[in-house]
């Protein structure tokens, strides 16, 4: 369990950092509502990664990272007494993000519309839908990350997708009508 410092381990960690840092930061920020705290949590996640044997986790590295990241973020909420708010569904809102330089106005509108709809979902649905469509995790992986049953994950995603589709349809109709 002691930290290692060899070339292969360093390469493993650096690759993991490069691949998953952005996604983990977003994920933690959604839970904590604070990008800087999210950075601390993600940093702690990678510090813990140093203590792991790569052979033990490399076949499910993203799942491991998100699981640890989630646990660390919830620990922060718990320490700050905000856990009940999270459990009650009052997920924090992350401050506005800067638009991507290459985005056109139209694509920005579509992305912003989708993001807005997602942000209106209940927090549990937000978390699961982001793990699915942003993190690319399967139902089973989401189940292991969140501690929910696979059936429950399926139901939550189904409900969220239904809401999002309805929202997109309504917004489009409203937009065309106005």
């Amino acid at each position, binding site marked *: 369990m002691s930290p290692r410092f060899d070339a292969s381990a360093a390469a493993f960690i650096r690759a993991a950092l490069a691949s998953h840092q952005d996604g983990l930061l977003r994920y933690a920020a959604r839970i904590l509502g604070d990008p800087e705290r999210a950075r601390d949590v993600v940093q702690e996640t990678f510090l813990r990664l140093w203590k792991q044997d790569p052979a033990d986790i490399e076949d499910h590295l993203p799942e491991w990272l998100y699981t640890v990241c989630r646990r660390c973020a919830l620990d922060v909420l718990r320490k700050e007494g905000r856990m009940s708010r999270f459990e009650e569904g009052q997920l924090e809102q992350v401050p506005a993000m800067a638009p991507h330089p290459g*985005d056109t106005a139209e694509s920005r509108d579509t992305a912003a519309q989708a993001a807005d709809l997602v942000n209106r979902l209940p927090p549990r649905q937000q978390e699961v839908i982001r793990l699915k469509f942003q993190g690319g995790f399967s139902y089973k992986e989401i189940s292991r990350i969140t501690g929910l049953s696979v059936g429950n994950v399926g139901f939550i995603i189904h409900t969220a997708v239904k809401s999002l589709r309805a929202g997109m349809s309504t917004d489009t109709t409203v937009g065309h009508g106005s």
Partner: protein
Amino acid sequence: MKTFDPDDPLLTAYALGELEGDELREIEALIARDPAAARHVESIRSAAAGFGEAFEREPALEVEPIRPVEIEPKRRVPFIPWLFYASTAAAACFFVVLIVRLADPAALTKDANLAAEAPIAAPPPAPTTAEDRMASNDEGAAVESRQQPSLFRKEKSEVSDSAVVGAEATTTAKRANAYAAARERDDADSARKASAPAPPLGEMKDAAKGGRAGALESEVLKLDQFEVSTNATEGAAVLGDLRAKLDSGEVPQAINAVALLAELGLQETPESQATESGNLAAQMAVTDSPMPDPEAALVRAVEGFARLVAARTPSGDEAWDRVLANARYAAGSDPRRLTFVELVGETRDAIAALGNRE
């Protein structure tokens, strides 16, 4: 035969590629015979692709990226045996002197007077046994012991008589330091509380028993901040305090408190409590199956551990296995919780060693 229901989560799961086995075949059959189901699945796929694209376009957070250097461990300092043993001996000397002075504040005044009158002590004989070596570690304390009232000399004798092996004491010392450090991190009031009045003399004496004076001294000094009794016989009150701490989310503090109880309980719990409390511990300690969530497992592990220690439950009792299983389950990769797991294992070993000596 399954019929088309647009509100069926299986259709969403199918559209997202999540089905397998019988459910997959069932939905495939439905789509093959019902064009409405096929259109529904296609619309879900299309929407899902749109969501994925929208998320991909979501810009990164405006936060400084983590640099690899921030997460890479520092290179280890090479282990130098003589330096390690010399620093350990120096630390032991410091703690023994410290506890002697704290145990009898009047000695501080006496020291000043006696120091001027005391003859220069002859050098002690070369240590030949582990006990001798421990006693000779602190020349200052040895001089002091010749100058103190008989009560103190008796304590010093007890230290030698019941000295534990050096490795055990070293492990305990390291652990105590780790707990002290963790406490200081976790408790914003630690500095203020650490400066609170020293605990009663009796607790100091108890702490000094068994050659663990250095390690336990730091524990005892900070005892009041946890508001738990050092007397392991007051099990109900202690467990009540622990429960309150756990309920209020002060898990690290609760663990620290139990660690302290473990140390003290090992030394002062009467043998007579063992059987009844041990049986209770076996019931308390993780009898549920399957495993509860990690936090509940931690609560059970901590409570079970406290009871096992208070009862000095034999190390072969399966309740230890259950407490360890719960502690490991709750620990995950949390370093502090893993320390708790180590503590449980070490305590069990210590009880086994005590049993062997007896």
